[in-house]
C-alpha cells in the first residue's frame, strides 16, 4: 500500500474512532472496547478494499460485511455514517427509543447493515449462506465476516468454520478479533482459544495472522485472501480492546462496556459544547 493511501486510511480510522466515542459518549455508556478493536479493519474494508456504495446499499453485487459480534454495532455505525450511508446526526440517537442505531447490528433498522447479529455465534453461518448465494448466482462479490474471540466459544462457530473450510469458500474472508478479553475476564483464563492458528488450519482454512491495528498488514491479508482460490481464508487479528483511546485501553477487561463522561468524550473528540 502506498504511503499516501496508508496515511489517509490511518487518519480515517482516527476520525471513525472519534465518531464511535462521540456516539457512545452522548448516550453515556456502551460497548466501547470491542467496537474500537475492529475499526482499522472496517476502515480498510469500507474505504479501500471493499466493493461498497453508500448510494446503493442494497446493490446485489456489493460486498457483504457481517459483524457476527453484533455488540460492535457502534463501530460499524461510525464507519457507515462517515461513508454517508445515513446522516451523521443520527449517531446522536444510539439506543434511544425509535432509533435506527440499536445496540446490536440490525439489518432491518440501519441502512448499510448486511446482517442482524447480537445472539453470539450466528453471523458466520449467515455469511456462509451469502457466500453460497454468490456461487449459485456466479457473482464475484466477497463476504467479510468478523467474529469475536469470546464469541468463538460458541459451538456454532465451529460448525460454520468446518463447513466454510470444506466448501472451500474462497469468496468468504473470516476475521477474528483476537483481543483476548471477554466480559468475565481474559479468554485464556475463562476458556482459552489457543492454539487458534492450528485450530483454523485443522479446519482446512487458509490461516493468516496480522496485527489488527496495522492497516497495511490487514490490507495485505485481504489481498492474500482474494488471491487464494482453493480455500476459505481466516485472518487472526491480534488486537487491543479499546485500541486508540487510552482511557479505554487502560480499563482492559473493563473496556467491554462502560460509562463515558461528557468531559472524556468531548476532550477525545475535540468537540466543544453543542
Amino acid at each position: 500500500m502506498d504511503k499516501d493511501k496508508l496515511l489517509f486510511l490511518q487518519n480515517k480510522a482516527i476520525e471513525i474512532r472519534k465518531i464511535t466515542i462521540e456516539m457512545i459518549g452522548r448516550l453515556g455508556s456502551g460497548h466501547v472496547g470491542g467496537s474500537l478493536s475492529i475499526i482499522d479493519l472496517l476502515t480498510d474494508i469500507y474505504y479501500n478494499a471493499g466493493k461498497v456504495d453508500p448510494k446503493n446499499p442494497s446493490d446485489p453485487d456489493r460486498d457483504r460485511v457481517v459483524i457476527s459480534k453484533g455488540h460492535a454495532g457502534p463501530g460499524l455505525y461510525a464507519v457507515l455514517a462517515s461513508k454517508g450511508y445515513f446522516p451523521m446526526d443520527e449517531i446522536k440517537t444510539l439506543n434511544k427509543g425509535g432509533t435506527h442505531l440499536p445496540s446490536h447490528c440490525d439489518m432491518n433498522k440501519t441502512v448499510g447493515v448486511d446482517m442482524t447479529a447480537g445472539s453470539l455465534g450466528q453471523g458466520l453461518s449467515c455469511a456462509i449462506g451469502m457466500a453460497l448465494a454468490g456461487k449459485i448466482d456466479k457473482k464475484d462479490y466477497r463476504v467479510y465476516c468478523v467474529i469475536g474471540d469470546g464469541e468463538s466459544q460458541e459451538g456454532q462457530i465451529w460448525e460454520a468454520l468446518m463447513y466454510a473450510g470444506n466448501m472451500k469458500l474462497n469468496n468468504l474472508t473470516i476475521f477474528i478479533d483476537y483481543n483476548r478479553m471477554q466480559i468475565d475476564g481474559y479468554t485464556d483464563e475463562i476458556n482459552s482459544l489457543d492454539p487458534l492458528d492450528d485450530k483454523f488450519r485443522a479446519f482446512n482454512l487458509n490461516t493468516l495472522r496480522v496485527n489488527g491495528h496495522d492497516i497495511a498488514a490487514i490490507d495485505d491479508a485481504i489481498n492474500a485472501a482474494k488471491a487464494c482460490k482453493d480455500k476459505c481464508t481466516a485472518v487472526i487479528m491480534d488486537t487491543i480492546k479499546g485500541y486508540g483511546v487510552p482511557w479505554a485501553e487502560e480499563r482492559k477487561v473493563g473496556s467491554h462496556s462502560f460509562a463515558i463522561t461528557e468531559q472524556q468524550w468531548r476532550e477525545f473528540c475535540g468537540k466543544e459544547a453543542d
Partner: protein
Amino acid sequence: MQDVKEMRQVYCDCLLDMAKENKNIVVIEADLMNCIKTERFKAQYPERFFNVGIAEANMVGVAAGLSTCGKVPFISSFGPFATRRCYDQIFISVAYSKQNVKIVGTDPGISAEVNGGTHMPFEDMGIMRLIPECVCVEPTDAAMLKSLMPQIAAYKGLVYIRLFRKKTEKVFEDGENFDLFKARSIKEGKDVTIIASGIMVSRAIEAAEILKGEGIDAGVLNTYTWKPMDKEAVTAAAKRSGAIVVAENHNICGGLTSAITEVVCANCPVPVLSVGVNDKFGEVGKMPYLSNVYNMNVSDIAERCKQVISLKK
C-alpha cells in the same frame, strides 16, 4: 384408507415442480436427506442443494444468509432437531432478521414411533408459534400438501411445516384446493365440533360417525394452519355447536388447544376439552401403542365429546 404416496415423496415432487420456474428455491439438509428423500432435488439441481452435515444451527444460519440474497431455502430435519435444537438461530437469524426460510420438521408427535422420546416432538408447533410472525402449518394429507406447497413458497417469511413423513390417512380428494390461511370445515355439527389437525383429523371423522350413531351431531373442523389461526372458522364452530373438543398429536399445553382456546375465550366462550398429549415426554412404540399411552384413539375423542356436551349450559 392410506394415501398412495408418502408425504416426503409429495414434498420433493412439489420442490422439483416449483424449482423449474423459481430459480431461487434452494434445499439444505443436515444429514437426513435420505429420510426426507430430497436426493432427487440434489440430482436435478446440485448447485442449489447443500448438506451441512449434522449441524442444525449452522443449517439455519446458512439458510438465513442465502435468504438475504433472495434465495428461498427449504430446510428440514426431524421435528425436534428442526425446531428445539436450533431455536435461537431460527428466532434471531431468520425470524427477527425477517428472512424468508421454510423449515420442515418431520415425524410429528407419535409418528416418530420407534425413534422414541428423544425424537418425538410434542412441543414443536408450540415453540414455533411463540415466534412472532411465524406461520405454522400441519398439512393433513398428500392432497393438501400439494395444494399448500406453492403458497408456502410464495409467502415471504418464516413458515414451519410439520410434516408426517410417510403414508398418512387420506382425508381429501386429489386436486382439492386449500388456502394456507383458512381452516377446512369437513362436517358441521350442532352438538359439538371436533377441531383437529394432522393424524387426528381422520380419527375425528371416525369419532363423529360413531357419535352420529348415538344421536349426537358432531362437526369436524381441520385447522391445519395453527398460526395465524382462522378465527372466523373457529368462532363460527363455537357458535354453531356451543362446545369444542380439540384433537391434536402434540402437547395440549402450548399446542392446538392453546391456539383454539385463545380464539374461543375471546370471541365465543364455550366449554373446550382436549384429546392430546397431556404434558408427557415421548417414548418408543408403534402408533397404535402410543395412541393408547396418550389416550389419542377415536374412542377417546368420542368420549371427550360427550363430556364436553355435558358441560354446556
